């Protein structure tokens, strides 16, 4: 048992450092600031009717519309008029089958109901305490974007997702290259970034940009702590790579449950830069926030690529990633390089977590769900190659978003509807995962990887 006290102490310190921060903040720190006020409530079940005018493309509440609720036998149960927010809450005695009728004579002139005036609520589906029924007047004006506009939008989204995946997976790939570890806990390093930044900026009220910088640094230190406390001792003990992979699974389970315990299971948003209107250049629409994060991320990526390509440190890193023994024999301190790789990789993952969190909100499993795309990216690029991770991650991100658009000129073939019509948004990750399997069939070493690594 050569698991030294020093290493254990380092691991414990790293964990306490993170754990302590979580402990210091209450789990329910976010204020329900932008929730709409709910005026009245019912003691029992209720039906809320909302009447809105949608004629001009945006919803406007309509006041003073009479809504009547009848029970299954047709007898009137309750009636009421909508308030200034276009809503009315009607309390009903039990969760049963009702019909909700809007009195069209109470609508103002020029307002015509879009759809039926009477809606039936099925008692079997009356599960929540308050059922909401929506009525709209005026024909719906939906902006139907043309194909090219949609494509440009998807490309912009794909560009942003691709950059995030590329940033997150550089560390995954470099750590694999230098130590051989396939780190299944890498997604949790991404989540670390999102959660710590949320903690610092929202709960502690630190300026967001400062908080982001601190978070990226802490993320890097977290990586170094993990390496010093866990992975480096394991390597010294000669624990096999497959066993290390299982250890990383254990670490992932621990971290995600720690996050869930301290952060809760819901999605939380950063409060800074939240509600911005998009800037438009022709078909391209992007908010100033997203544009800034994209530019910063792109700059970071180029910086990392230059660092690896030009600097002594980067050359040494690539050498270790190619062949540890050979690199060590030329005088490179491979242990030091591995520490730097852990710092860099984990810091980049934390940055990815912040960017992703600005985009989609922070969740305890945000990194875990990105992990698959990261794997797809680095497999495409070539496991262990840093440039491969950059290129592959970017391609996968682009692929995920653009695959939702489809090719309308594609012939209508059975089983290939996704190519013609695009992938449903909820399934947009599926083609990327399928691509992962396909790449391994055709070219397992990826675009930039080397053949001797794969098997």
């Amino acid at each position, binding site marked *: 048992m050569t698991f030294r006290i020093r290493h254990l102490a380092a691991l414990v310190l790293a964990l306490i450092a993170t754990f302590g921060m979580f402990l210091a903040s209450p789990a329910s720190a976010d204020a329900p600031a932008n929730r709409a006020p709910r005026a009245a409530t019912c003691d029992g079940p209720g039906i809320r009717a909302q009447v809105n005018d949608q004629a001009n493309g945006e919803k406007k509440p309509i006041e003073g519309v009479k809504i009547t609720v009848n029970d299954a036998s047709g007898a009137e149960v309750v009636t009421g008029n909508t308030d200034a927010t276009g809503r009315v809450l009607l309390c009903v005695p039990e969760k049963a089958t009702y019909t909700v009728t809007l009195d069209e004579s109470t609508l103002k002139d020029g307002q015509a109901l879009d759809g039926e005036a009477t809606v039936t609520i099925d008692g079997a589906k009356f599960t929540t305490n308050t059922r909401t029924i929506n009525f709209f007047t005026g024909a719906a004006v939906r902006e139907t974007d043309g194909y090219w506009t949609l494509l440009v939008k998807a490309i912009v989204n794909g560009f942003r997702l691709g950059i995030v995946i590329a940033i997150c997976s550089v560390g995954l790939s470099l750590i694999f290259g230098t130590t051989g570890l396939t780190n299944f806990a890498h997604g949790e390093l991404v989540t670390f970034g999102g959660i710590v930044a949320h903690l610092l900026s929202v709960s502690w009220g630190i300026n967001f940009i400062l908080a982001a910088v601190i978070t990226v640094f802490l993320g890097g230190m977290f990586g170094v702590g993990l390496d010093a406390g866990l992975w480096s001792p394991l390597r010294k003990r000669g624990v096999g790579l497959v066993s290390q992979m299982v250890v990383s699974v254990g670490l992932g389970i621990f971290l995600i449950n720690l996050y869930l315990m301290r952060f809760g299971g819901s999605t939380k948003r950063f409060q800074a830069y939240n509600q911005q209107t998009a800037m438009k250049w022709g078909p391209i629409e992007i908010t100033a926030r997203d544009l800034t994060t994209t530019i910063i991320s792109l700059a970071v990526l180029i910086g990392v690529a230059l660092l690896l390509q030009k600097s002594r440190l980067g050359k040494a890193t690539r050498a270790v990633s190619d062949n540890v023994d050979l690199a060590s024999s030329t005088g490179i301190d491979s242990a030091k390089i591995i520490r730097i790789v852990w710092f860099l990789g984990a810091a980049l993952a934390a940055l990815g977590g912040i960017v992703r969190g600005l985009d989609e909100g922070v969740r305890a499993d945000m990194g875990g769900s990105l992990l*698959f795309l990261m794997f797809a990216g680095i497999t495409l690029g070539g496991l262990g190659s840093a440039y491969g991770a950059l290129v592959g991650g970017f391609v996968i991100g682009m692929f995920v978003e653009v695959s939702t658009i489809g090719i309308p000129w594609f012939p209508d073939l059975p089983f290939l509807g996704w190519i013609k019509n695009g992938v449903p948004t909820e399934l947009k990750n599926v083609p990327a995962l399928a691509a992962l399997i396909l790449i391994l069939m055709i070219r397992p070493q990826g675009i930039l990887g080397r053949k001797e690594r794969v098997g």
Partner: protein
Amino acid sequence: MDWGLILDLTLKAFLGLDAVYYIVAALGMNVQFGYAGLLNFGQAAFMAAGAYGLGMAVNYFEYSWWLGLVVGGVYAAVLALIVGVPTLRLRADYLAIVTIAMAEMIRLIVRSVTHKDKFGGTDGLKGFADGFQDLNPFAQGKVYGIGPFQASNTAVTVLLLVIYGLISLGIGYAIARKRKAAKLVPTTLIAGAITYGITLLITSRVKYLGSELWVLIVGWVLVGIFSVFVYMLMRSPWGRVIKGIREDEDAVRSLGKNVFGYKMSALIIGAVLGMFSGVLFALKNSNVQPDNYSRAVTFYIMTALVLGGLATVTGSIVGPMLFWALLAFTDVFLSELSDAQGRVEIFGIELLKDSSARGQFRLGMVGIGLILLMVFRPQGIFGNRKEMALDGR
């Protein structure tokens, strides 16, 4: 603190259905990982294949429920082929990545609105277990004790005493063989008698609902069949080749064996066992829900397997039993420990602010446990360290 309650619930989990379906899945992962060295991180997908095979056979194709087993088996085997063909020639970690990606893909598809007509979306499928529950000899809502002396009539008491006796004798024999005892018969009898006593004590404290008990009995019978199957399989020439592949693939190949074929069959056997596990889980809940087959499930089964010991049949049975007993114990213990506000304190140190977070707490402990096991005792409780010389080549 009600120690009786803690003991009862722990023992109930020790013998319960969660342990049973984990055991079946763990046996499958053991064939793949423990014996053949194939790291399958997508066992949840094979379980989902079984569960959805059953559910779709009844709800979508409108077959009878036992044909669902065939449908599930076909699903699982096809999945294993799709995953295996590109990856089995590559290094171990590629299989891990691909299986975990495949499991996520399956989960996304079955929970999607697009395919709700077939898989039922996030609500999943229900009502397919009626045919199975119709065969249930127990009253569904009634609570049954499983101890011999809790039975209502003498015939059942005698039957249970005999069954538990035979099982205990079998365990005693296994212990005697394991210890390489000089006098086999006396050692078997002594070990068997001790096991018998423990079994009677445990069973006297445990009660199950009739609907649950029926699945439980079917499950334990399946566990018995599959354990013997895996045990015999690994002592057969086929099993020796499989273990040889784990140790040195090239050596086996140089003997003229078709390594790819052997690995593929190991993967499929594991997948079919996973499918049976999924079926048991679906029958237990009488529904299938996509989010019950997330990757976390695979990881927990893996932890239970490593706890028991890789490359041993005993390990894949005892591991999941202990795993669930420990989970249940932690759960009840923490909830008993919490004060009126739900705060949990041990020796004056605040452990949890709110005892409702104890689910996450105990799963976090599972993660720590897996790390510690892999580092300090990779062979688990029953494994042999020499058989655990796994590395990524």
